[in-house]
């Protein structure tokens, strides 16, 4: 509610300032900075348009767009079936790469798909079962409602349930802190977080492939998801909806995807163009 009011205030201020067309964006704090960067560039090119961005998390974005309270809802996860029924439309705007990471005390640097699955489902509980030293496996995961955890369950665990022997941390940052300080820890985080903590944490290849744009493009590296932008054409007025769609087109334009997206820790959508995997 608070966010909604804030966004409305921002929208009203924007609208009265220059009779501008105002697009409100809400949701994922992970995608926020990227969309904000896009908004700055877009507003510079289109002086009549105001784009107001607020956070709140993926589910807030989906809840708000389903209720028609904003123009674009950004999310790391797909909308639920009930939210889909409100007529919202999905636009995949970016590839979000994830990687498995381990505490430096763990000597393993590559895991097969089977091994990774077994580590998280709990059938492997000591690192010596997957070629490492004799050390207990400490799984550090996100909460059940987390989008990252949903991706992890789909890609790494192949839909199977997580072992209940796990530590749960609220954010990717807290997961990284716990993983860097806990002996025998394994976690699943956004590539960006792994790179920012280089030295304190070790990235692990998946089926022999490291997380890189080349491997994603070649279809060798499946641990990624899409960043979503949802619109609600039924509840938005036509003019705003048109601006929103033009803005999304700008985000998907080659120049933005190739120049800005990689710097923000994401990968361009084009890499997935030929992939059959649908996440």
């Amino acid at each position, binding site marked *: 509610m608070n966010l909604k009011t804030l966004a409305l205030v921002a929208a009203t201020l924007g609208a009265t300032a220059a009779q501008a067309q105002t697009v409100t964006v809400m949701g994922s704090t992970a995608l926020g900075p990227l969309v904000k960067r896009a908004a700055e560039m877009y507003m510079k090119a289109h002086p009549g348009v105001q784009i107001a961005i607020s956070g709140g998390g993926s*589910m807030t974005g989906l809840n708000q767009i389903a209720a028609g309270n904003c123009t674009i809802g950004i999310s790391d996860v797909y909308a639920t079936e009930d939210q889909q029924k409100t007529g919202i439309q999905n636009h995949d705007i970016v590839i979000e790469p994830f990687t498995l990471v381990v505490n430096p005390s763990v000597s393993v640097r590559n895991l097969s798909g089977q091994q990774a699955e077994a580590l998280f489902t709990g059938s492997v509980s000591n690192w010596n079962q997957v070629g490492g030293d004799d050390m207990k496996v400490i799984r550090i995961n996100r909460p059940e409602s987390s989008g990252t955890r949903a991706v992890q369950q789909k890609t790494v665990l192949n839909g199977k349930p997580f072992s209940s022997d796990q530590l749960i941390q609220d954010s990717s940052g807290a997961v990284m802190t716990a993983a860097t300080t806990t002996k025998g820890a394994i976690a699943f985080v956004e590539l960006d977080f792994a790179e920012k903590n280089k030295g304190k944490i070790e990235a692990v290849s998946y089926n022999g492939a490291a997380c890189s744009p080349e491997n994603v493009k070649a279809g060798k590296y499946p641990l990624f998801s899409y960043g979503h932008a949802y619109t609600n054409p039924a509840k938005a007025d036509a003019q705003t909806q048109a601006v929103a769609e033009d803005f999304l087109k700008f985000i998907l334009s080659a120049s933005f995807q190739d120049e800005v997206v990689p710097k923000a820790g994401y990968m361009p959508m084009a890499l997935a163009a030929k992939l059959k995997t649908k996440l």
Partner: protein
Amino acid sequence: MDFRNTNAPAGPLTEAVRPVALEGNGPVTDEALILPAQASAAPLKFKRPWALLADRGAGTVFLVCTLVLVALIFSLLGFLAWRGAGAFVAIPGNTGRILSLREVFLGLDWSPSQDRFGVLPFIFGSFTVVGLSIALAGPLGILTAVFVTRVAPRWMRAVMRQAMDLLVGIPSVVYGIFGLATLLPLLSKGWLDEQPAAGFLASALILTVMIVPTVVSLSIDAFEALPSSLDEGARALGSTTWQSIARVLIPAAWPRLVTAVVLGMGRAIGEAMAIQMVIGNNPQWIGLMRTLTDKTPVLRFLFTPASTLTTELVQELPNTAAHSAWNNVLFALGLLLYLLTMGSILLTRRLSRRRA
């Protein structure tokens, strides 16, 4: 809102104060009697009409403020109750399955993505963490208060109070970061052969540091309120310092000490942020404690990642789809937490009334 006119120095203030002091049905203190006497030269009627208006207006302003506050509290309670009720009865906008009270409040398994919504682990978790921290903070706080009021030099009392006030002012997330970055590694290295230390003990320790200032301050008050004749009498009968403290002073202050601890408990129940960072947040902790065998039972109880009502709420409430069964149950948990906190407040009031 300031209805004292700056152009009229002091005048309206005394006028406003006097009727209240005279009409107040509380005990008439010396101060209240002196006030009108000093101002007796001034006529009783108001000098300017606006002063009368301001006086009447003030009443309305106070009333409005109170009503706004009461409305806020009840709308919050109503909001929680409405959204929480959605878990158990069909309400408009509901998209989730209707759950039975039994499967929620008597269920041990919390796996919302597999449609299982047992919240007992959170309730047990909350009581365990609060119980442990009270067990630590109660004796610690009361004995500190004994030391400060009976043993330590006088100047130390002021220093201790300052220190306790400082501790109260620290935001809880700071305690959490301290726990995550310092306490957990310390426990893990010192006790557990570098296995993770997240769990009840770490949370209880952090909570103890957070509530001990409340317990100490109120316990100091409790001991200071005792008439010195108690201590003197005990000594006259031949008690040592320790006997006087243990057999006379602590029993005499007991009701107030209990109030101090219950107030600390009130703070402990509602704390979310700091615990969330050190407890490990595992909803399946009950089953895990049963199946794990790599530690002794005591260590397993203290160091298995667990979760509480508050930690679950702070983590999942913002990330669930509105009006889904999952979301509704979380609102019901919020309501439960609200009622628990309210209960502890009522308990405190009852206890302190018995004292008086």
